[in-house]
């Protein structure tokens, strides 16, 4: 499942970050920020207009990601992990 499709509040774990195009700096930055395999992740809140951006809790930090950015992150349900 993509992080952008994860329901608000549902616990999940990062699987991987895919480049949207060759040498995608946004994907690289996501990895640097801690979106790496096995990291617990959660959608804390969504923006008031069109449910965009998403507020993501990863590690001890909260990041606002637009849906297009969150779509680069593939997550899996915590139970499977």
């Amino acid at each position, binding site marked *: 499942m993509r992080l952008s499709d994860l329901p608000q509040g549902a616990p999940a774990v990062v699987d991987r970050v895919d480049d949207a195009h060759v040498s995608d700096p946004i994907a690289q*930055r996501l990895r640097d920020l801690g979106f790496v395999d096995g990291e617990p992740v959660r959608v804390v809140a969504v923006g008031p207009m*069109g449910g965009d951006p998403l507020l993501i809790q990863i*590690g001890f930090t909260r990041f606002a990601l637009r849906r297009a950015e969150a779509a680069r992150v593939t997550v899996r349900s915590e139970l499977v992990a």
Partner: protein
Amino acid sequence: MSASTLRIALVGNPNCGKTALFNQLTGGRQKVANYAGVTVERKEGRFTAPSGRVLHILDLPGTYSLEANSPDEQITRDVCAGNFPGEAVPDLIVCVADATNLRLHLRFVLEVKRLGRPVVLALNMMDTARQRGIVIDVPELQRRLGMPVVETVAVKRGGARGLIERVDGEVPTAAPAQADDAASRAELHAQVRELLASTVSMPRTTAVLDDALDRWALHPVFGLAILAVVMFLVFQAVYAAGKPMSDLIGGGFGWVGEHVAVLMPAGPLQSLVVNGLFGGLGTVIGFLPVILVLFLFILTLEESGYLPRAAFLLDRLMLSVGLTGRSFIPLLSSFACAIPGIMGTRSIQDPRDRLATILIAPLMTCSARLPVYALLIGAFIPMRYVFGVFNLQGIVLFSLYLAGILGAMAVGWVMKRLRRDKSEHALLMELPSYRMPKVRDVAIGLYERGAIFMKRLTGVILGLTVLMWFLSTFPAAPAGATGPAINYSFAGYIGRGLQYIFAPIGFNWQVSLALIPAFAARETAVAALATVYLVGGDAAGGLGHALAGQLSLASALSLLVWFAYAPQCMSTLAVIRRETNSWRNVAISFSYMFALAYAASFLVYQVTRWLS
């Protein structure tokens, strides 16, 4: 490196409290400038350590990674790696990490360590970490990292003592430099996990306070309501405190000018001193209170952590017109004055988003336009009620504000279509923990903004003001002239020349002439119109009458719309030059606003004439 000085570079993730630590170490002994060729701020300070050694501290821009994505991050990377031209290699890197956010910050520490330079880690915000029950085994962390680790509390007096002692001591030996490639980068996260597991115990991953506040602050309904209230209060403060002070300063300089005039013989020199110098200084320094009041709020909101929340709420709206959530606060400030608005765009890291924000900021209806609006609306719009409740004059004023906003949205949208770089620019914004703003940090920030304005802009604006004075004073009126002196000046000639350009939008030569001094400061348009129409005494009341007799309704509406969009004032253009380091951007904003104002005024003038 001489034995008695040490060059230290402060690095760290955004929101690690690095700048507060820098303020704590250096106090007021800071120099703020720009790095050569770019508009990224360079902050350097120094202090004398107990040993008598002078420490030069460079506060580098915060970054999440040495894999730089923006100009300010590139500077941090290049200075740390020792290959930024004109910047000495730091003898010691102090890496600052937020003790409550080590999952993120330790990765950067490991990245810096791989540069192979002497590094000291400052574990900042240790007080907050303890309050939250976070326990860090510092000796073990130090051993595993292979670098000295000191605890700091940047916001508390004496909270940097441990760091000062450490950097004043022997420079630690550097770890061997390591190559930087994708595989080894991925490894950093595994190392961080290992470090955390063995040295840090954390009862819960988030702060209780953040969770509680965010539930309200980011709520789709309450969040927007809170934002509206906050903005309303900021504006009330600007108009209640900033504007009267600005008027007082403007008036004060006028008063001093008049008294100086008495001491001088009448003539061009007296006129230069009174109208050019004191008038100009009054205008420039008059901006200062509004700028300071606005920045007091912006800095407080920024320090408290609320600003990114506001950006989160509005990002979608701003994105639809080619901006970012972070553009919101600068644009809002521009309703008071475009100058602090444009200076406030420094909080937007992405250069493209920042430029887009700077270009449309002057379209927000600033407070200097109000006197002109008030005069023209009072003179031409009948005081009557629509549907029994709405005041027609009020509706026109509201429409002018709306015209500015809609115009800005349209321009943003068009720029988004036109720009060559259509790549995706990320939001990727951290929402830091809420914090109580510290008076010292806000005060230093305010002083910096004020100093930038006074030092870098006064000269330019004053020069232009004196030029305007020159144009409207020379050549002097011939003997026996009947009209006001300005009619015979260069400005008079230019005004009559401009008339041919402005006739299709309904401006006569007097109005065209008044546009020239209005370029110095919009509100002077009222005074200029009073001069050319030879109105004495109570300018506003009498002038309204004079205008109503001389201008048609179509011309008046056209003039109102002109003021909503026109490229003014020159102080704003000077700030654009200063903040973008480019005359090209000044030319772009001047010409697009001129075209926009001309087109809109033309439409309004012709349609009104056709209807009446």
